[in-house]
């Protein structure tokens, strides 16, 4: 396992590619049939849902800024899949569709929200960048950089507070805050690392380092590009992990969750990843080189897991194909139903401003 302490000599690797090629091996999550199929299904749902979003966007069915998650699925599935649904808490950004799906928000509710329908998880008032579900403990998608991190910290604070002040022994929820590499240059990131470690809060800071912040390459914005190392400045545990390998992410998440639940405090988990599409569906994506895209394309996390499942004889290719089919059917139905779903009633325009309404 890579820990801060293991590193006496500090060295910086220049590029994302070099870093992921030089990652040290540490304990991945175990693969068995049940786990493999669950992870495969969750990642496939994320991928196919996003592909459908692109289609719907270009067909003029959804509007605004739509940020897709393709390529990064191993992180949502690896982390959220290792947590307790409707018990632990999840906090996302504007790139939030797949986190919502992994947390268990039905694809119909997410798609409805993207269409602005009354049946959306935010009742058509949030849109792509503001998915919320109290039922599924999704604290929300936050459209401004970094602002979700303090909110996630608050959920982690509540967890400790309820246990120690309200003496609720069952209060052992852990919060996962997801955000990008560019966000790690924002003050709220540093402020919250400090408070989380200071108060030993049960939170995992999950950095989805996809190397780019719109058109700003990570190395051009960041004096020390190895984000996980910043944990040590706060006395916090940090790890870097191959974000294209769901078992590696799951393994790291399991360690972080265990520590957080045991009251041992937060973890900064930097997942090296890449987005397979532009920043948003409005992004012409002209800055990233073909060579770079090709390198990462070969590390498709879904294909990688499929290969491991088949090679390990946990399931057959046919079984995986039937999962693909099942997901496609589910998504088609969600799209169909969401398209037919009602608009939010005009007379309810001002509803949900106040707690009483």
């Amino acid at each position, binding site marked *: 396992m890579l820990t801060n302490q293991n590193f006496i000599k500090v060295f910086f690797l220049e590029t994302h590619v070099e870093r992921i090629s030089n990652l040290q091996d540490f304990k991945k999550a175990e693969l068995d049939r049940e786990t493999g199929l669950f992870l495969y299904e969750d990642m496939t749902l994320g991928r196919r849902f996003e592909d459908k979003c692109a289609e719907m966007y270009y067909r003029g069915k959804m509007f605004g800024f739509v940020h897709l998650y393709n390529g990064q699925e191993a992180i949502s599935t690896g982390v959220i899949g290792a947590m307790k649904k409707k018990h632990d*808490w999840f*906090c996302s950004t504007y790139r939030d569709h797949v986190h919502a799906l992994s947390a268990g928000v039905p694809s119909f509710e997410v798609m409805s929200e993207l269409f602005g329908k009354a049946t*959306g*998880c*935010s*009742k*058509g*008032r*949030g849109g792509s960048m*503001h998915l*919320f*579900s*109290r039922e599924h403990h999704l*604290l*929300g998608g936050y459209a*401004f950089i970094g*602002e979700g*991190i*303090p*909110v*996630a*910290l*608050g*959920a*982690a*604070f*509540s*967890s*400790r*507070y*309820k246990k*120690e*002040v*309200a003496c609720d022994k069952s209060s052992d929820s852990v919060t996962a805050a997801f955000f990008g590499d560019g966000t790690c240059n924002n*003050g*709220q990131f540093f*402020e*919250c690392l*400090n*408070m989380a470690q*200071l108060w030993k809060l049960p939170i995992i800071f999950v950095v989805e380092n996809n190397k780019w912040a719109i058109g700003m390459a990570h190395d051009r914005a960041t004096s020390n590009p190895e984000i996980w190392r910043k944990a040590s400045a706060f006395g916090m545990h940090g790890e870097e992990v191959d974000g294209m390998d769901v078992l590696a992410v799951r393994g790291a998440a399991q360690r972080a969750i265990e520590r957080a639940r045991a009251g041992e405090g937060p973890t900064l988990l930097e997942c090296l990843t890449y987005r397979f599409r532009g920043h948003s569906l409005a992004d012409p994506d002209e800055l990233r080189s073909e060579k770079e895209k090709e390198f990462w394309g070969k590390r498709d996390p879904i294909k990688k897991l499929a290969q491991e499942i088949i090679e390990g004889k946990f399931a057959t290719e046919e079984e995986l194909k039937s999962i693909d089919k099942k997901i496609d059917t589910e998504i088609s139905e969600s799209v169909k139903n969401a398209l037919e779903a009602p608009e939010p009633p005009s007379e309810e325009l001002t*509803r*949900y*401003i*106040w*707690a*009483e*309404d």
Partner: protein
Amino acid sequence: MAGTLLFNALKEAIDEEMANDVNVCVMGEDVGQYGGSYKVTKDLYEKYGELRVLDTPIAENSFTGMAVGAAMTGLRPIVEGMNMGFLLLAFNQISNNMGMLRYTSGGNYKIPAVVRGPGGVGRQLGAEHSQRLEAYFHAVPGIKIVACSTPTNAKGLMKAAIRDDNPVLFFEHVLLYNLSEELPDGDYICALDQADVVKEGKDITLLTYSRMRHHCLKAVEELDKKGVDVELIDLISLKPFDMETISKSIRKTNKVIIVEECMKTGGIGAELIALITEECFDDLDARPIRLSSQDIPTPYNGNLENLTIIQPHQIVEKVEDLISGSI
């Protein structure tokens, strides 16, 4: 019975609500061991412990955001802005998160949080520590804004704010913390959305809030001697305005002057005058007037500072002018 100082009235409110509900907690800079920079949370740290009265690092946007997350997950945090001006750093959390989140979440979450602290022009504190943020925050949807002005309403409003399920911005005034007054007995609250008719009168309506209530009271006394019968209303609720009480008064007096400490441009009075014009136009015998602070950063020099904010004699003069029809 001895009077209670305003800062102690606030403390009583917080203490009683913390005793009532284990989910009520306080967070902010120096609120715990130090007892708050104006001693509003004195001794509560010893009584309730370090998690319930949480001393935070100096990180306004993050601890305010943390309060949002805590409120979303069941707590009822009270955030202290050591000085309300510092909350400019938390503008995003107050606006985007507290104000908008319930709506954008389609009612998934509620945010029962209070953000409180000292604001207003003090005594030569310099521009940055003399701000009136109520006007800056006024356009934010989804938050309630109140300003206390006496020990009695400070306590009653604070208790109501803590019990309210919506985010409440609670303005105190640096120069009012040492006001003393005998408090009503028992567990009372003051409605967050109700103006206070401080003195009934028939000749003219004065609308004011926070420290200017006391400047107005001085003016009212003076005017009374001159035979002018003023109706003085303390707005209390800056958002939403209690238009019922306000328009009822204007229907009676047909004249209105707004006295405020915030700057004139984009101020509380600006919005109020717009509403009065829309809703009470036919009841007005004269144009509505605003007495506001100068549109400048508050100067340090004492004389200049006094010239920046409205003084009681200016209120007297303006009322006389309006009554005599000379303006």
